[in-house]
């Protein structure tokens, strides 16, 4: 009950920041730009985009695929930035303002404050992910024909089945962002400089993505935090590749638990000197 009030206050604080609203607006605009660009390139159904994920060429035939294209494109940088900003700012920002000492003197409770912060980070990541999916779906419907979905495995399923798979894909991506949010929260407990924490999260993401693309390092690939992000295409097969999905979810869970424990251990024992 009191936790719900604190959570609402925290969520309102995050959603009131113009910077955060701008980030959500950006996540909404990107799928539109991608959709329009693909529409302009559409006259050559099987040309272009050869290097992209398997479903890039499918969009001309079915607008639903714009959602998968948008999610996989934004997962490289835009969605991680959105989550990094809110997560990196979460504790470090309060420390920077000096409000952290007053929240703890209220007393908000250290573990409780951390839990509420994390809840809002997850919510924000979920919002951003759903904005991408919903805007892309709407844009795809307007710009392209929509109908039964031909999966990557060649099977064709009904539109309803396709949309259900889209829902699961979106939730999978949101889970990936929740794990990144936990990493961001942990980093945020280490500093009073929000910008520093945000930058550190982004450096981590980009480093992980680069290492994941070095063939010689294939052995460590599966342990990198970003490795399983794009594995949601496992849902676009019949039957779905559940082993890959579970691997991904396990990776997210492990990162979230490890980071959460680190954040808790650090935050409940640190002197608040800001």
């Amino acid at each position, binding site marked *: 009950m009191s936790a719900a009030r604190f959570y*609402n206050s925290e969520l309102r604080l995050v959603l009131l920041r113009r910077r955060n609203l701008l980030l959500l607006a950006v996540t909404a605009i990107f799928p539109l730009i991608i959709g329009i660009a693909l529409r302009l390139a559409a006259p050559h159904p099987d040309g272009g985009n050869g290097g992209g994920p398997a479903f890039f060429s499918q969009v001309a035939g079915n607008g639903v695929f714009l959602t998968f294209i948008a999610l996989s494109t934004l997962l490289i940088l835009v969605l991680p930035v959105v989550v990094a900003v809110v997560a990196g700012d979460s504790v470090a920002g309060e420390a920077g303002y000096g409000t952290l000492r007053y929240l703890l003197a209220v007393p908000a409770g250290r573990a409780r404050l951390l839990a509420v912060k994390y809840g809002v980070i997850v919510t924000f990541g979920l919002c951003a992910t759903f904005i991408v999916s919903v805007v892309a779906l709407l844009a795809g419907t307007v710009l392209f024909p929509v109908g039964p979905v031909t999966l990557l495995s060649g099977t064709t399923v009904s539109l309803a089945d396709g949309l259900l798979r889209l829902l699961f894909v979106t939730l999978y991506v949101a889970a990936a962002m929740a794990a990144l949010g936990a990493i961001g929260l942990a980093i945020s407990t280490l500093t009073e400089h929000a910008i520093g924490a945000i930058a550190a999260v982004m450096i981590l993401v980009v480093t992980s993505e680069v290492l994941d693309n070095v063939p010689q390092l294939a052995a460590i690939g599966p342990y990198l935090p970003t490795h399983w992000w794009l594995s949601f295409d496992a849902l676009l097969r019949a039957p779905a590749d559940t082993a890959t999905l579970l691997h991904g979810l396990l990776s997210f869970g492990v990162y979230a638990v490890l980071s959460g424990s680190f954040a808790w251990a650090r935050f409940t024992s640190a002197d608040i000197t800001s």
Partner: protein
Amino acid sequence: MQPPSPATSPLTTTAISTSERTKRFRGGQLAVDHIDLAVPPGAVYGFLGPNGSGKTTTIRMLLGLAFPTSGSAALLGVPMPDGATRVLHRVGSLVEGPAFYPFLTGTANLARYDAADRTADPATARARIEGALDRVGLLAAAGKRYRHYSLGMKQRLAIAAGLLQPRDLIILDEPTNGLDPQGTREVRALIRQIAADGITVFVSSHLLAEVEQICTHVGVMRTGRLVFQGSLTELRHTGAARVTVRTADPEAAAKVLAGLDLADPQATSGEASAVLGGVSPEQICAELVHAGIGVRGFAVTSPSLEDLFVGLTGEGFDVSG
């Protein structure tokens, strides 16, 4: 709603007590060195000390913000920092200046802190926030963004945050920092009002003059150590009275004073003085006349509180620590 305070029998527990409380920062800096605070309930306790003497660090430990290196402490009888979530809602605080969200209004800022308090009743939040703003005279600026507040308004908002709930103890770290004389007077009046409601007040300052008029007790810090603690009257009694003789021949007069076994005899131009001790002024006067010294003036003076304070903390301009 119950009236603010003596709700939980503060009369039987010390408001603040610490024993051998010590804080050594990771860099090795010993900021607080084995201090034993005892703040009686209902007191207005002035916590004095020069810059860097460890006042803020002590307050951070009292509030569970910084963890002690050793020693124990209790707020309103509850051990800290373990009991933080059990007792801090009865304690209002201002630590090292106000801190709020610049992009929120005064009201929204108070609502934010209130929402973080699990003991706060959301149904009364609005009334309590308005009441607190009213108390510090900030109602007119309640809808303004904190970013646009003046220094004095910020300070008032911080005190208002300390008054959101009925409290038994208020801890204020340099509440008049940066205020003009008018603002300083207003804060002092506010502290008097708070104390009149029976709330124990613990207020830090580096100026004795600033808190002298409102305090019943003082603790004096110097380089992390508590060098004096007691009532103002007790502080006054620590000062030794001096006898001062105005005369044309201060050297001779100082000799007479020394001859009477008075401590610290001094001769300056036109004056001789010494610590009075147990000798009666009448006897000193008679001896001076007997020695043929022309006495132009004779006075017995007790040191001012300010002198005593400076004596305890040292006069130097350099920060301690």
